């Protein structure tokens, strides 16, 4: 009986961490998805995330208000996205290598800022878990939704950043599937010449999606530094941004696919963390390796390859063809 209870507790713990850890993947991958849908592969997500993580942390550290951190990460992310858009859309540079440049820049700049402006690893009180207590809406009761047995803790004990991330999934699906702007994005990524001939501005659409992708990557970084971990460290994303790019492929360029991928990866991450906590007989190095191995396997799966935007990584020049 006791043993069953422990197992239940562990499973609940893994599910809870899984839902929580999907947050940065969701922000970064959903943003990246819009860029890729319009034909731009931004590989600099990792670098933008690091800058977002730093500025989000620094603003929160200075003001004590995590919402200002959220805002700072958005702004710096959008600026980096704008830079990538300028390089890949206006200057038509090779997207893969530009992304690596952006990554190196973000990695270096965030470390440099950390070293000169903070110096040591500090903690902040970022976004706290919400718990959904009735008292917070004026009802005189000490009851919180997070106290609901089993599901309560898994679903109702996350920070507001996590809930926003999940809310963005249906919103993204709606924008992409049901609005004019979504139609334009898809057209530009599928057949820019045709879109252009119908009066859709390819450049403006791509500028918009790539800047938005940067903004989301910035928030993704901040979700680590002011919501999940509440610290900033050099290179704290450690490849997460690259996995987020891969998740867009894995999710077949659809928001729901991205959600499935993000949850799958975060659950593997959670499993890995719990295996270490429990001292299971798996070398931690092998466990840490798992998400990366899975990414390669996921990329090799032939499912939904057809969904790839036809003009992905192809710069557009009017009158070329």
């Amino acid at each position: 009986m006791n043993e069953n209870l422990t197992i239940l507790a562990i499973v609940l713990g893994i599910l809870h961490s899984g839902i929580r850890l999907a947050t940065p993947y969701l922000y970064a991958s959903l943003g990246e998805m819009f860029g890729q849908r319009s034909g731009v592969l931004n590989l600099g997500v990792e670098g933008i995330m690091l800058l977002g993580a730093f500025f989000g942390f620094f603003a929160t550290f200075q003001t004590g208000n995590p919402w200002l951190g959220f805002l700072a990460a958005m702004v710096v992310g959008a600026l980096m996205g704008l830079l990538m858009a300028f390089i890949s859309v206006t200057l038509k540079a090779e997207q893969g290598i530009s992304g690596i440049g952006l990554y190196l820049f973000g990695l270096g700049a965030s470390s440099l800022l950390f070293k000169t402006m903070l110096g040591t690893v500090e903690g902040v009180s970022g976004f706290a878990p919400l718990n959904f207590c009735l008292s917070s809406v004026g009802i005189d009761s000490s009851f919180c939704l997070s106290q609901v047995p089993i599901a309560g803790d898994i679903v109702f004990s996350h920070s507001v950043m996590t809930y926003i991330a999940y809310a963005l999934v249906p919103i993204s699906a709606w924008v992409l599937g049901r609005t004019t702007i979504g139609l334009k994005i898809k057209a530009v990524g599928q057949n820019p010449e045709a879109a252009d001939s119908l009066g859709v501005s390819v450049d403006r659409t791509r500028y918009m999606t790539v800047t938005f992708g940067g903004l989301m990557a910035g928030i993704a970084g901040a979700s680590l530094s002011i919501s999940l971990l509440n610290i900033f460290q050099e290179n704290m994303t450690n490849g997460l941004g690259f996995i987020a790019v891969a998740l867009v492929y894995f999710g077949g360029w659809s928001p729901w696919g991205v959600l499935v991928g993000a949850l799958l990866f975060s659950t593997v991450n959670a499993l890995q963390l719990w295996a270490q906590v429990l001292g299971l007989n798996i070398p931690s190095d092998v466990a840490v390796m798992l998400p990366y191995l899975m990414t390669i396997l996921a990329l090799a799966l032939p499912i939904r390859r057809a969904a790839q935007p036809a003009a992905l990584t192809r710069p557009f020049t009017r009158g070329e063809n």
Partner: protein
Amino acid sequence: MQKKFDIYKLIDLFIPILAVLAALAVGAVILLFQDANPLEAYSAMFSGAFTNKNGMADTLVKAIPLLLVALGVAIAFRGGVINIGAEGQLIMGALLTTWLGLQLGDTLPGWLVIIIGMLGGAMMGGLWAAVPGLLKAYLGVNEILSTIMMNQIAIQIAFFLLRGPMIDPAELEAGTNIPQSARLARSADLPRFTDMAKALGFTKTAEELGLTGFTAELYGLFVEPTRLHSGLIIAIVLAILVYVLLWRTTIGFRIRTVGENKAASRYAGINVKRYIVLSITLGGVFAGLAGAIEILGLHHRMFEPTAVSAGYGFSGIVVALFGFLNPLGIIPSAILFGGLLVGGDKMQRAMQIPQVLITVILGLVVLFVVSADIWVKRRATRRVSVEEPASPADPDPPPSNIPPAEAAT
């Protein structure tokens, strides 16, 4: 076709130089924000890396892996494959070299251990690169993403081996458990320049010969005890061989053709998939060899994988781009960026400016070089419409410095 002086070639030559200058200018602005004098910082960098024998030795020691990695990156780029995985390929090469060295060090003569170690490291790097190559060629997996994942996997494999099977027994005994291997047998050290100079009869120091100033430093660099080792010679010879491979052999021609235009290559009967795998595997061979030489020439043991690879996989890309993806251009490029890395270290010590500034500058160089490519391309298309198209056997590098890459085809 008659060779004539081409002003555009001269302009192209200046693009990477302008890119570096622009990056340094942005770096200067960052330095101003840190309340540091940029001129002072940059002169500390330059004098630290290029004016005294130890600084120059460190610069060249860093140029060795940069040169080898950049050669690999260039071969792959020429074949239309973006290899971001040199970091992991270098680590895997270094691991196998260390293992071979530890196994064979006591039984075989040193020179044989060195040769086997280098071959093993190169092979391991090639194998590690062949995986993303095969995945790209046959399953359409984006090689940028897969090589980045392979890097992370290599790091974890190294930690796993260095904490368990390959750990230095002394670490276990002392209970410190630092993840590093034992030192390889001293007989398997790649000869240093000072050893070779001694064998050739140069035994006097610069002071004894009455040399002063920069001549003394230059003499000291090659003759007096510094860390400079013979890996430099191997790397430079290989750079020349890669030039011959790419521009004077059929294989090289096919690699470049596949990189330039896959459809045309297929039409010409080239097995495109095979050449994709070949170009990235060759790239991995060079990265693996860089790992082998780092172990045999410099570290003599394997330790924290990210400290051994030291970001060369990424800075090597910058070196390759700066050298026009041309092996002969990559030689000076590697020395320049080796100096930048060493200079960053000196600057940190002299002025307390974090060395990561160099990473920022590297990123900016990449962004500027790739961005400037639009001018080259624009002119190329304009010229094609006026002049007759260049003959396919034209031994000059293609007009664009960046090969077109596909996301997944």
